[in-house]
């Protein structure tokens, strides 16, 4: 075993002074392995979602606790979980998956407020935060807290209630986890100080990191007719599409990223080892520069981190 590892990892006479792992044949095998494994995983994810799929540890309870913790730290009152807002959040999530969009307003113009009204929540103030691709609750909250507009939504004194939904599914062909936070205040809960600051008209605000200036502000009166029709559609959606919760045996994202990162680390380690030993022994070889490959593998590692990073809007 020791001899085998030595042969594969350390340059010596038996491998012609180039770690066997770095030989063209072995590199080709690894390339073939990753291409086939990718295809195999994709097929397994489609046909056996209970075995391999996307899952997350984001929980509504934790989101609520962490949101209220941040609010208390800022001297604000806690938000109470409202089932109607949670229902609105779930239908918004299912709508994004069904229509294949990732935005506060759907391509057909449906605003978040339609879902809130559709769930039977009559708001004075309402807001929405969205997150995608996060695997645990604290990462979601930290991402929202790091963005001005999302933080303002979370730490607004205008809200008394909150609802969350964690929806897993395929969004434009990509398996992902969507986290939807709907915030609101009913007419009864609104305090005089709030209305003094923000005005007494019924307004709705969406939080978007990039499109803050285009924050939709909708007068309920103007859109009364449109909202009524859309509400009916949303109610139908809520009734017909219960979010199926399949928790796979293996989390595809964690599994693939761990495997890829382990492979990259091993290759980088072998390249470094190869470079150091050859330089010390002053052996002349006609091979590529190990330093180039180490830097390149470092780039691939960084790109994986970028690809697996969640986003908020």
């Amino acid at each position, binding site marked *: 075993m020791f001899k085998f590892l030595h042969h594969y990892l350390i340059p010596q006479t038996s491998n012609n002074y180039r770690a066997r792992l770095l030989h*063209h044949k072995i*590199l*080709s095998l*690894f*390339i*073939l*392995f*990753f*291409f086939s*494994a*990718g*295809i*195999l*995983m*994709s097929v397994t*994810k489609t046909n056996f979602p209970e075995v391999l799929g*996307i899952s997350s540890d984001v929980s509504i309870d934790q989101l609520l606790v962490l949101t209220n913790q941040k609010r208390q730290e800022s001297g604000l009152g806690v938000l109470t979980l409202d089932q109607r807002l949670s229902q609105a959040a779930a239908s918004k999530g299912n709508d994004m998956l069904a229509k294949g969009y*990732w935005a506060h307003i759907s391509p057909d113009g449906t605003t978040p407020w339609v879902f809130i009204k559709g769930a039977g929540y009559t708001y004075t103030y309402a807001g929405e935060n969205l997150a*995608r*691709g996060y695997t645990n609750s604290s990462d979601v909250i930290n991402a929202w807290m790091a963005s001005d507009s999302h933080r303002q939504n979370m730490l607004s004194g205008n809200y008394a209630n909150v609802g969350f939904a964690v929806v897993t599914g395929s969004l*434009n*062909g*990509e*398996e*992902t986890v969507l986290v939807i936070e709907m915030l609101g205040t009913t007419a009864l809960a609104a305090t005089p100080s709030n209305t003094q600051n923000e005005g007494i008209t019924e307004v709705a605000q969406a939080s978007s990191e990039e499109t803050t200036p285009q924050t939709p502000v909708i007068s309920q009166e103007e859109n009364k007719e449109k909202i009524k029709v859309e509400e009916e559609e949303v109610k139908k959606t809520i009734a017909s599409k219960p979010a199926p919760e399949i928790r796979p045996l293996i989390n*595809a*994202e964690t*599994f*693939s*990223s761990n*495997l*890829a990162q382990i*492979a*990259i680390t091993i*290759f980088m380690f072998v390249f470094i080892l190869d*470079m150091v030993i050859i*330089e010390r022994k002053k052996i002349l070889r*006609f*091979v*590529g*520069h190990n*330093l*180039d*490959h180490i*830097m*390149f*593998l470092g*780039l*691939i590692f*960084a*790109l*994986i981190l*970028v*690809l*697996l*990073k969640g*986003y908020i809007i």
Partner: protein
Amino acid sequence: MTKKLFKHLNYYLMLWIIFSVGVITTVFASPNRNLQIFTIITTIILYVIWGILHHKINHELTRKITIEYLLIGLLGLSIIFFIFTGGI
């Protein structure tokens, strides 16, 4: 290693620029996966071209070295493919 880095400083500076632009464009391309795939493939192709040209200019390019850069580029591509199809 440091000696090599200083000797080929201009080449490595160019490589850093290629890599930095690759990472930055991939970050800005999110969540558009197709655009991310495009930026990553472009960065990998540029790396292979850079590696081959670097050896060619220094008169040390052999067929074996060309294949090595192609294989390392393909290894990076296969890992990214694995992440795209298998993981996300």
